[in-house]
């Protein structure tokens, strides 16, 4: 009976606790809603880091293209993600500008080409292989075009103004599109395997689309390290308790020794 009450108590506490936490995160519906095989609007116009206004079709230039959505004043996820991209391009053993292009589009309409150029310089510096600068463009555009591109790839983010500072909650993902703008593959996270990206680029060049491999999203969340301490204490308590029981069992077995008399010998 006691056990039944304990279970009931546990479940009701879990319910209360989960609901309480749910409300905190309910308004945030950010993430990647995959649209594999869909096409991005190729005639949207964006401005590159040198101030040239071109359509996506011109930027993609009939090559498989790696697409990332970021903003240039991002303090959290974007820099590691773009470093991750630079890192994987270094290792991918494909020829930049001949085999593929890279496009980074800002989701902040107030970002300027000058800011974009700074970003570009910083990240291109980390690439050690010969890398034509025109391979990787850092684009800015107006809200309407940003919405159109992010909707077409299912990239859901949220603007947040806190203490006068504007930032965005957004997922970490790169997308590979085919020369015709078909979405071939999503790669989640901020670090990418050269194997994954190369395979995706090869698929995109053949207009194929492949499944998402690492299905776990990384979010641009502020992480609260404090709240996890209770977990480890629970672990210790449960662990010690279990170990204690087992130790008592062992001592009992050793002390009582073997069964000397057979009850039914014959």
């Amino acid at each position, binding site marked *: 009976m006691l056990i039944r009450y304990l279970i009931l108590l546990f479940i009701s506490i879990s319910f209360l606790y*989960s609901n309480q936490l749910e409300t905190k995160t309910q308004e945030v519906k950010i993430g990647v809603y995959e649209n594999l095989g869909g096409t991005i609007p190729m005639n949207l116009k964006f401005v590159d880091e040198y101030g040239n206004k071109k359509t996506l079709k011109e930027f993609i230039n009939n090559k498989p293209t790696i697409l990332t959505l970021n903003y240039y004043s991002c303090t959290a996820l974007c820099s590691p993600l773009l470093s991750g991209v630079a890192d994987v391009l270094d290792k991918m053993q494909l020829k930049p500008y001949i085999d593929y292009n890279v496009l980074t589009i800002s989701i902040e309409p107030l970002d300027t080409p000058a800011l974009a150029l700074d970003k570009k310089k910083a990240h291109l510096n980390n690439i050690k292989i010969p890398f034509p600068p025109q391979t990787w463009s850092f684009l800015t555009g107006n809200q309407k075009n940003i919405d159109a591109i992010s909707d077409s790839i299912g990239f859901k983010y949220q603007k947040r103004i806190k203490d006068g500072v504007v930032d965005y909650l957004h997922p970490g993902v790169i997308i590979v599109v085919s020369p015709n703008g078909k979405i071939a593959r999503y790669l989640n996270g901020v670090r990418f395997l050269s194997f994954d990206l190369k395979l995706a680029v090869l698929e995109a060049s053949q207009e194929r689309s492949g*499944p998402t491999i690492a299905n776990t999203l990384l979010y641009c969340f502020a992480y609260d390290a404090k709240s996890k301490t209770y977990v480890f204490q629970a672990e210790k308590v*449960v662990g010690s308790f279990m170990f204690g029981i087992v130790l008592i069992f062992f001592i009992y077995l050793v002390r009582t020794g*073997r069964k000397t008399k057979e009850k039914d010998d014959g």
Partner: protein
Amino acid sequence: MDNLTKKSFYDETHTVFGHHESKLLQWIFTIDHKRIALLYLVVMMAFFIIAIFVALSMRMELFAPGQQIMDPNTYNQAFTLHGVIMIFLFVIPGIPAVFGNFLLPLLIGARDVSFPRLNLLSWWLYMFGALLAVMSLFVGQGFADTGWTFYAPYSVQTGTNVIFALTAAYILGLASILTGINFVVTVHRLRAPGMGFFKMPLFVWGLYSTAWIQILATPVVGITLILVILERTLGIGIFDPSKGGDPILYEHLFWIYSHPAVYLMILPAFGVVSEILPTFCRRTIFGYRSIAISSAMIAIIGYLVWGHHLLTSGMSEWAKIIFAFLTFFVAIPTGIKFFDWVATMYKASIIFATPMLWVVGTIITFAIGGLTGLTLVTIGVDVHLHDTYFVVAHFHYTIFGGVVFMLFAAMHYWFPKFTGRMYCERSAKKAFYGIFIGFNTLWFPMFLAGAYGMPRRYFDYLPEFEIYHKIAGVGAVITIASILYMLYILIKAIKNGEPCGNNPWNSTTLEWQISSPPPLENFKNIPYVDFMPYEYEKGQPKRDLTKIIEGGNHD
């Protein structure tokens, strides 16, 4: 002499609810440890065959780049199904459930395990868990696609039947715990008079160490699986960072069980090696005590190494170094065993019967598997090799080339004990060579593919990896054909094998001194055992044990 006309456990049995007329009811309600062992054997082998064909379908899919016979999601489900069946339904129950159940009481001179009814309950739980796993294939969105490790957060998010699979794994874990408790108590309570801990056969030492792992580690995975279920149904957030949880915590909890679990698989296999070697080398095993203690050492240290699965997941540098060093330490007791075995074989007049061939084969394959484990746990190297085919190759070299090879060895070695007949040696040896060659063709190329960067669990790959997948595909066909041939040889011999008497190998352990197949309740009189298990003199057993068995207990 012809035991086949004598009454054996096949002819009579105790059941949990009275006497049944029906043969089927007599089997499924039996509380005789030998019958329960056979129940496990039949079900496990059925699942094993299903899982190898699932594996074959994966190899055929990977035979060429791009899509061949299944789509990517089916592929994800296929490798999960393969892993779940092989791990939870085949290798973890594995040697303890079949050979442990059958032989533990025989080896220590007991009439049954301590809790025969609990033993039957374990089998029923096992069947129930297996049934749930099978059911989840056919309902809802199909079998889980998470891999057998069920890593959060993906296992929390995917739409497939994760809860079914987790519940199945949970119930199978419970069955495993009950078997563990049963074996521990049996070893403590039911050893024949005179038999101290250091007079027990080494297979019993392996089972004893394993049983402790089952008791201590399995509850952790049980808790973990329930947490995932709660996370999916109630959203408690323990693995969700947006609610203050931590997905890495899942990996810790999971591997706290699942790493000891690989020792749980291999320790009984090492025990089998230690039984077979003295018999076919015709001499006392070298370093009995060190082998016995090293089993316990592996079980203890094996507890403290789980972190090496997380070297790339995010851990403090100190934790990484400690986990890596502890993992290196496991190699020491394992090495002790290996050198003891080699020393036993050194200058012995080895009889290369099939079980001995399997042992020698395992010493080779497990050495490769074990040493590549040390390569993997070298922290810097692991950053490169983590989640590649190198890990897949390492894992199969240890678990298939160690545990399953020894299960096959045990199937041959104790075949005469189970049936009273002998299989065809010539054919069985052919099957061994087929499997051994196929095995190496299948998995050795994966070491290379992994080192060059082929990630595991991928449905597709870059053209430069095609050659490795082609060779592995051929190896898979050879391996599976040879396994089926081996099973055919053994099954044929159940009916048509030559009757071979009680002790065809001229072995010194207790199980061979009673009739084959053994009678119900094994020993008419409980023997008094005040001697070591493997005592040979000039290539012959030192004493005539049948007299001791017949003489029985003198108290």
